[in-house]
């Protein structure tokens, strides 16, 4: 069925809630309002106020709630409205949720999904647009999923709800509504730690994160017209990170471009570059290239924000430079 990213995520939630009565949702404005962008619309009516819960503006308490309820066997989906707010919950995530299994020597786990979104491209300014998955990717004991497209997003969310670890699920709201694709109606999961080659190519490998996956696919079409065949890889999860699929691709193309909405220093892109280097330098025809936004905060002005953002044009330019 054709659906956009927001609809695919809602469908995953709805199907999992119907299948497992221990799946509950809590977050700011998720119930009566159905979420600020409508992702959880209709779930309160379908599953009732015990399972779809509006929360006070309390990110620490939200992440703690998820940890505690999960320890007791519920499967909470905790929504934190903007990714920029997640550092408020970081203590709970890294010291508590991620460590429950360790502190209990395996007696307990805290498997909940922390859903959040970054809204770069929606003119929301420096404190409502940021993308920093490496904060979470550094934490042992959790999963970090970067859903980018409707079909894989549905399966990734289901996988998160069946994992025995906490999962941070970061959605690019830039693509919530802008295109649709065919999403299977059956029950499927997309396994964590297995990157998806979303486009085959032979001249260079583009690893794109989150929002930039559809952008990289569009850029690859343009590159094709210029005689450059780009392979596009979506890691899907950055913890666990599937380095092998990336390295296999680079061993074939010899060129690697990593595109991410993060700032470059200590980023997931840095991690991918380091991992590929560690595997084998011999097959690289050119040094690895990372494409990041400039070293400023996200400007609110639409014109300035546009200049800040990586787009198809900058992806094409970076790819062409790598081919020279």
């Amino acid at each position, binding site marked *: 069925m054709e659906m956009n990213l927001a609809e695919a995520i809602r469908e995953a939630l709805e199907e999992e809630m119907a299948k497992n009565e221990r799946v509950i949702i809590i977050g700011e404005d998720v119930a009566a309002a159905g979420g600020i962008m409508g992702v959880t619309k209709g779930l309160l009516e379908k599953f009732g106020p015990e399972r779809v*819960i509006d929360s006070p503006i309390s990110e620490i308490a939200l992440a703690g709630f998820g940890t*505690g*309820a999960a320890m007791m066997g519920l499967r909470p989906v905790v929504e934190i409205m903007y990714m920029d707010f997640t550092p408020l919950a970081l203590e709970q995530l890294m010291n508590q949720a991620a460590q429950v299994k360790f502190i209990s020597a395996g007696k307990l786990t805290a498997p909940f999904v922390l859903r959040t979104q970054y809204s770069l491209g929606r003119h929301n300014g420096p404190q409502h647009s940021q993308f920093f998955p490496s904060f979470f990717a550094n934490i042992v004991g959790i999963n970090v999923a970067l859903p980018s497209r409707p079909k894989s997003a549905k399966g990734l969310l289901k996988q998160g709800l069946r994992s025995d670890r906490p999962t941070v699920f970061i959605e690019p709201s830039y693509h919530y509504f802008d295109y649709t694709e065919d999403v299977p109606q059956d029950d499927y999961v997309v396994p964590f730690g297995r990157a998806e080659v979303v486009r085959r190519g032979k001249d260079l490998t583009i690893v794109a994160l989150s929002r930039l996956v559809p952008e990289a696919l569009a850029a690859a079409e343009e590159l094709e017209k210029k005689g450059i065949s780009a392979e596009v890889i979506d890691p899907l999860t950055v913890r666990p990170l599937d380095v092998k699929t990336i390295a296999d691709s680079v061993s074939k193309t010899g060129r690697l471009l990593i595109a991410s909405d993060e700032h470059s220093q200590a980023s997931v892109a840095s991690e991918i570059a380091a991992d590929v280097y560690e595997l084998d330098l011999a097959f690289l025809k050119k040094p690895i290239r990372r494409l990041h936004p400039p070293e400023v905060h996200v400007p609110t002005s639409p014109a300035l924000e546009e200049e800040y953002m990586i787009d198809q044009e900058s992806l094409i330019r970076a790819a062409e430079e790598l081919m020279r």
Partner: protein
Amino acid sequence: MEVESAKIDEINVPTILPAEYGSFGLTREKVLSIYKRMVLIREFEKTAEDLYVTRGVLGGLSHLYLGEEAIAPSVVSVMKPGDMVLGTYRGHGHALALGIEPNKVMAELYGKEGGVARGVAGSMHVIMDPEKGALYSTAIVGSHIPIAVGVAYAMKFYGNGNMAIAFFGDGTVNIGAFAEGLNMAWYLKVPVLFVVENNQYAEYTKTSNTLGGGSIAKRAEALGVRALVAYGNDAFSVYRAAALAEADVRKGRPVLIEAVTYRMKGHNPYDMASYRPQDEVAHWLDRDPIKLMESRLLSDGLKEDDLKAILDWAKKEVEEAVEYAEKDGVLPFDALYGFV
């Protein structure tokens, strides 16, 4: 609020005489069981202090329950099967009060495989035996408060009448998780009991100097959580507060008990607590919770020999725990990968 707690130094909770304890559900059997746990905790902590400081056998961070022994054993006496305790880095007393074997607690302090957490987590995480109602403890001030709310929500969701109990210290009421957690507990109407062990010092700083509004109990009430103040050195007073709270809590009305007590020693075993005025220390050492309990038991018909038998039992338990921990082995490192 049962008692005004604005000036905790002057707290004046009416003494509860043994003849009255039956009126709030205590029995001779329960009183003896509380007393036994108190003595066991005292002996365990004295030995732990010795192992950390005098003998230097143990290292790392630890936080002793000396002087606060009346609180955990009394509160957990109102628990029913399936109720869960969450606590802190000052948790040896709670683990022992819940009936976790001293061997397992001591082995955890030693970092040995027979510990409650296989020696992986250490002294700050000994409240760990869900089958005995010891669910979790954290070494981060206040972080278990919202976790307890999630635990209590699950209990409410399952509808089995259970409750969660979160123990923490007075310093905790200045951390964000306290305000967010109590408010969330009120909002979600979950069965959770908060127990503040107000030992009057947040690490090395006098709490009353950093407590806006001056009252922990009032702060809880401002967040919609009913507050009871108990004299934390008096097991009867603490038990009465817990018994009063229990009925409300199980109906989804969270309660906070402020149990006013005093740390006999420093924040950790190495801290000599020289920042505390000597007359204040003397005042409180004179109000030893175990001695208070013993005077009640003696006036309730027990003999000195009965008390001595309990002390001997506790000493033996702790001695055996040290022997067990000394002999126990260390988990192979590779086992850690199974815990992440």
